[in-house]
Every structure is written in C-alpha cells, then in structure tokens.
C-alpha cells in the first residue's frame, strides 16, 4: 500500500468511517489469510485468529493509539500483530488452553463488517465453481507445460527429477513452470475473473 493511501485509510478509520475499515479488511484479508494459513492448519482456528488480528488493529487505529505509538508502517504493524497472535495461539495450544477470542462489542455491533470476515465459510462453494474455470485454463496450455505442472504439483517431483523423467534440463523445467504460471496469470487477467482468488 502506498504511504499516502495508508495514511488516508488510517485518518478515515480514526474519524469513524466504517467504509474505510471495510476497505482495509477487503484489501488485506486474503493476504493475512495466507500468512495465518501457512502456519495454522485448522480452518475454524484460522478464522478466529484472522478475526482477532483485524479486531486488534482496527480498534488500535480507532482510538488513536496506533498513531500515538507509531513505530512502523501499518503493514509492518499488521504483520507483527499477525505473528504475535499466531505465537499466542501456539502457546495456548501447547498448554492446552482453549482458544478464546473476545471480540469488542463495539466491533461486533458493526454486523456488515463482521460478516465480511465470515466469507471463509463460502470458500468451498467458490472452489466448486472455479474448478471448471481452472480446467479450461489449464487445457489451453501446451502439453509440455502441462506435463511439468502435473509432475511438479501432483507427484511432488523436484525440478531435477522432472528433468530426468522428461529428458530435459532442470533449467528448462524451471522455465516451463515459470512460463505456464505467467500464461495462466495473463489468461486470468484477460478474463478478468478476479473472483478466482
């Protein structure tokens, strides 16, 4: 996020603009979900941690304490909060303390905002719809790219193992993987199917 944009959002949240909070969550939710998802396997717990992260950050901006204590950009601060919340979860998990997240009433009163974070529950439905899309996209690739994709992501073979199997150099395997992903990204942006993510 550009610094000017970040400051604008912070100012609007501090002034009580709930649309700014929604904008912040919509912008960063997928990324925070990626971070939490890479460390926490359980779906329900993941969702609770993500909610906890956003509640903490937004409440801190609302009451002005983020600005007063500001030591880093909002993104760095959010990253720090995410890591802290994940560590906290493991500390509790290992001491067998049940995960407890107490949402501020002030936050949950804003139902529309809170419901947005519950988008996760619709994730499985979206995945079903996207299967058809993914199949079409992958079928547009040339066989040499498809071969490499399947050996890498279905068989979990390394680049060297794929090279040996297909009699091509590891560098070529890496190039094929890179090009196939670039082609898919290009197809996605041309189809403007942003909902794929």
């Amino acid at each position: 996020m550009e610094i000017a944009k970040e400051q604008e959002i912070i100012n609007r949240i501090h002034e009580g603009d709930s649309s700014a909070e929604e904008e912040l969550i919509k912008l960063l939710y997928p990324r925070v979900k990626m971070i939490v998802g890479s460390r926490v396997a359980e779906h329900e717990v993941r969702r609770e941690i993500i909610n906890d992260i956003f509640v903490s950050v937004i409440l801190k901006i609302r009451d002005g304490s983020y600005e007063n204590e500001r030591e880093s950009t909002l993104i760095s601060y959010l990253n720090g909060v995410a890591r802290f919340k994940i560590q906290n979860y493991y500390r509790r998990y290992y001491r067998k303390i049940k995960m407890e997240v107490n949402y501020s009433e002030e936050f949950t009163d804003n139902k529309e905002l809170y419901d947005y974070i519950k988008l996760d529950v619709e994730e499985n439905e979206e995945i079903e719809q996207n299967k058809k899309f993914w199949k079409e996209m992958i079928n547009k690739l040339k066989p040499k790219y498809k071969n490499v994709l399947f050996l890498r992501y279905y068989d979990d073979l390394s680049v060297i193992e794929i090279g040996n199997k297909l009699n091509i150099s590891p560098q070529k395997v890496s190039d094929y993987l890179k090009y196939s992903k670039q082609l898919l990204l290009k197809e996605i942006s041309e189809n403007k199917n942003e909902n794929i993510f």
Partner: protein
Amino acid sequence: MECKITNRSELIENYLRRELPENEMNSFEEHFLNCNKCFAELQLTQQLMGFIKSESKELFPEYLHISKTKETFSLVEYVKNLLSIRWAIKPGLSYAFAIAFSGLIIITIYNTTFNNDSANSLNTGQTEQLSSNFIESPDLESIINQEFRSEEVLKVLSPKVGEEVKNKLTFKWNSTTSEKLTIKILSNKEDLLAESTPVNNEYELDVVANNYKAGLYYWKLESKDNLLYVGKFFVK
C-alpha cells in the same frame, strides 16, 4: 511500488512447501502484504497446486501415465508402458515381453524371500522398530523453531534444527530474562526422557551413556508459565 524480487517463482514455491527458514518466511510475508505482483502469483500458485493435487485423477486421467502411480502398482503395466513408450515396441509384443520379464522378477523374489525366512522376519521386525523411532510428532513439528520471544530475550545458539549426534550434544542459549528456564528432552512420541534447569544456559546430553537409541528426538525450553522454543535432533 516496483517489486525488486528476482527469484519470485522459486521463493513462492519454497514458501508454499514450507521450505523457507523462519526469517525468510517472515520477510516474504511482509513483502507480499504490500506487493500485488508477488501476491497475485502466490495465490495463483497456491490455487494451482491445490487444484492439480485434488482434481488430476478425475479431470486429467490422460496425464497420469507419465506420473508414478500412487495406488496399485502393476509390474506388468509398468514394463509394458516402458517398452511401448520408451522404445516404441509394438503393444502386442511389448505385452509378451512384459509378462516374461515380470515372471522372471517374481521367481527371483520368491526364491530369495522363502529361502531366507527366519532372517527376513527378524530383519523386518528390527526395521519396523527402527523406522518407528523416526516418525515425526505432528504437534511438535508444527511449532519447531517458532520464535515465541524476540531474539533480544532468547536466542538459541545450538544445536541447529535436525542436527545429527553420535556421542554428545550441547544445548546452548542466550537469555536476558530473569526467569529460570528448563530444558526438556522428549522422544518422538513425546515421552519425557530428561529434564534440567541449568544456571549457565547450557546443557550437555551424552546420548551413548544414557542409551539413546537411533531415532528422532525433540527438545523444549520452557519458563514456569510459557513454552519458549522447540527444536529437534537425530541420534545416529
């Protein structure tokens, strides 16, 4: 904001496979919180990996012939494919070769196996016991090397995660906290094997004198109320 990462694809693959060290993982996460280009490719790769992993069998069966089959393995089919695809031998002839070759292998295995019955059953038992000592604990693996405190408070100096030891292993750490820290040594099944609260932030373990069998072991650093670090090592 222009992205300066040059090895994006490789970094993303390593991140998704959890093969990045913790500090690199944290740096990359802070980067993609801001970088649209990296995050778009990260999401694409994650979706692609998940889709191919789960849907290949149903949607792309024609590609499975080039992959190693994960379920029932047919020796005859394998040899037949090898002969047909690699050396372009006609299918009918390749089938005959495949059956003959497979038969030869089966006879050889039979002779070897059933003429070494007692030796084999003993070896099998030992092998099973040995391999069970290396099975990872899912709970502990998920928190290996996590930084529960910043480096200013606690820094583990040795051993490295996954270090192999034959005789002695020294555990060392720097701690600025006034709390007393306890080190615990666990088996891979999370049984407590040793515990100590050293005053000098150092603990030496003699695996030979204490009869530690070959296998995977975990170790923890704890204060009175908190878990601070989890690591692992192997005894060879």
